[in-house]
């Protein structure tokens, strides 16, 4: 007999407010429904009432953890729209901050993943080492979380030799620690027992359901905006796209660990090859953009982030659209969370499977909803029924 198991909107498995409605038979999950309507602000509409400069402040507040990805995407979008380009040094500084943010986001997720499978000491250790990166972000930008570093035309602060030295030193330590965590996560029998073959998403499912980011790359879909559609200085700073073919939670863990190591190399390379010159060009605080439209994409820690802007020649965007990686991954998540065929999903695996996409509910919900009291994805039980395969 099936019954419904609500998880959320407030629940220890996920600090953000979301309601997961599971249909379970005994220990097995047979269906799932998501309601993510608890945090949202109607940002797309709001942006139409703000000047381009004001919009930057709002965009950064879509999400705390991925604020660097949002602000990077916004500024390259607007710069391209108005035909101004930030100087090369600014592009490198943006890249350094973006990769620092990726390291802190991935370490945060690795800690949470350890927490979700009940490995509390690993959670504490990883969070301790994440602090090193948070300190670097604060030293570089002046802020720990909402960095406000990217501005239209460049970045807000330069980076001096003393700070570069500090970054190098701290990153060596982070690298050493990450290598150790990689070994633990690869070999530890508890971690493997909880993640290998859990939350399966085949390569064809990942392609069909349009998954992005580490979720896609752990399902052997080699797609990374940094490599495929280079922006800022990504065409100059070499890196490897990390791909795993295990298609499970373990693969998603390993993709993120390896991406931390790649990001460290990228930052060190960027510090060594930093061009000299200005770090910003002056753009007036209020300006009119020429009529036109533009698409910008960045690889946020959670996957491809897309911004679209349309200008009608005024000082405010005519239309601004944000498609966040978590929204793109929602369909794939619901697929992972269901038992299908001989791939059984147990209730105990719900936290780590849902966690494995690194869900960012405030990104998704705040962008989608246009009123302050909205509800999200109300009819998904039906839409999931369509996807059932057993």
């Amino acid at each position, binding site marked *: 007999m099936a019954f419904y198991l609500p998880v959320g909107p407030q629940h220890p498995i996920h600090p953000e407010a979301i309601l997961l409605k599971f249909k379970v038979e005994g220990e097995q999950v047979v269906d799932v429904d998501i309601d993510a*309507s608890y945090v949202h602000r109607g940002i797309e509409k709001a942006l139409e009432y703000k000047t381009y400069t004001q919009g930057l402040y709002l965009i950064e507040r879509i999400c705390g953890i991925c604020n660097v990805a949002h602000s990077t995407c916004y500024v390259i979008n607007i710069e391209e729209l108005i035909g101004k380009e930030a100087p090369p040094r600014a592009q490198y500084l943006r890249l350094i901050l973006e990769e620092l943010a990726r390291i802190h986001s991935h370490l945060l997720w690795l800690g949470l993943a350890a927490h979700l499978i009940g490995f509390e000491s690993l959670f504490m250790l990883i969070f301790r080492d994440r602090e090193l990166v948070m300190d670097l972000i604060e030293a570089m930008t002046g802020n720990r979380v909402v960095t406000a570093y990217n501005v239209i035309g460049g970045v807000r602060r330069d980076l001096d030799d003393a700070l570069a030295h500090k970054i190098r030193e701290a990153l060596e330590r982070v690298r050493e620690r990450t290598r150790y965590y990689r070994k633990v996560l690869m070999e530890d029998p508890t971690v493997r027992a909880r993640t290998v073959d859990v939350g399966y998403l085949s390569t064809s499912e990942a392609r069909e*359901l349009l998954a992005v980011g580490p979720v896609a790359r752990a399902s052997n879909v080699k*797609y990374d905006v940094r490599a495929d559609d280079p922006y800022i200085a990504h065409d100059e700073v070499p890196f490897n796209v990390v791909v795993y073919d295990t298609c499970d939670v373990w693969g998603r863990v390993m993709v993120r660990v390896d991406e931390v190591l790649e990001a460290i190399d990228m930052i060190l390379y960027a510090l060594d090859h930093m061009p000299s010159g200005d770090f910003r060009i002056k753009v007036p605080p209020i300006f009119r953009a020429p009529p036109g439209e*533009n*698409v910008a994409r960045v690889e946020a820690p959670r996957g491809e982030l897309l911004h679209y802007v349309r200008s009608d020649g005024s000082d405010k965007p005519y239309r601004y659209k944000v498609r966040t990686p978590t929204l793109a991954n929602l369909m794939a998540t619901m697929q992972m969370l269901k038992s299908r065929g001989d791939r059984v999903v147990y209730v105990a695996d719900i936290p780590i499977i849902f966690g494995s996409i690194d869900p960012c509910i405030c990104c998704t919900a705040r962008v989608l909803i*246009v009123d302050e*009291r909205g*509800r*999200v994805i109300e009819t998904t039980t039906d*839409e999931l029924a369509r996807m059932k395969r057993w």
Partner: protein
Amino acid sequence: MMREEEIVEELKKKLGGVLKEVKIQRARRVTIVVDREHYKEVLKALKDMGVDFLEAITGVDAGDHFEVIAHVGRDISVAVKALVPKDDPRVDSVVDIFRGAELYEREAWEMLGIVFEGNPRLRRAFLPEDWPEGVYPLRKDYRPEHPKPLR
């Protein structure tokens, strides 16, 4: 020849007559404008050519008409823009080509009232339950109470 040009050439060969406007904005950015009847055809052709990733669907209230923009492609972002008349806002759904398109279409439907014909679950998904019927917040004639600027 660049890949962008290859894509454009092949599309022109296949569907020459239906493309109203084709523009390569810059490297890796292509815009294609079609009438709504040919929107699905173009996306199908693109998928057959290996452009198999739908990034997002944007709905725009462009004043005298609506626009539905499907952003497709991984290395190259192709924007396929369908012009949809305001008095009859309908366009073909692409969920049978891109399964993951469903949520994107539902969002555009709710926010702008553009009907995606063939989407099996074109129902309220993102707006509140008590949101009045026929009010579409991202249309330009909708004036929100929020956001009010904080002073």
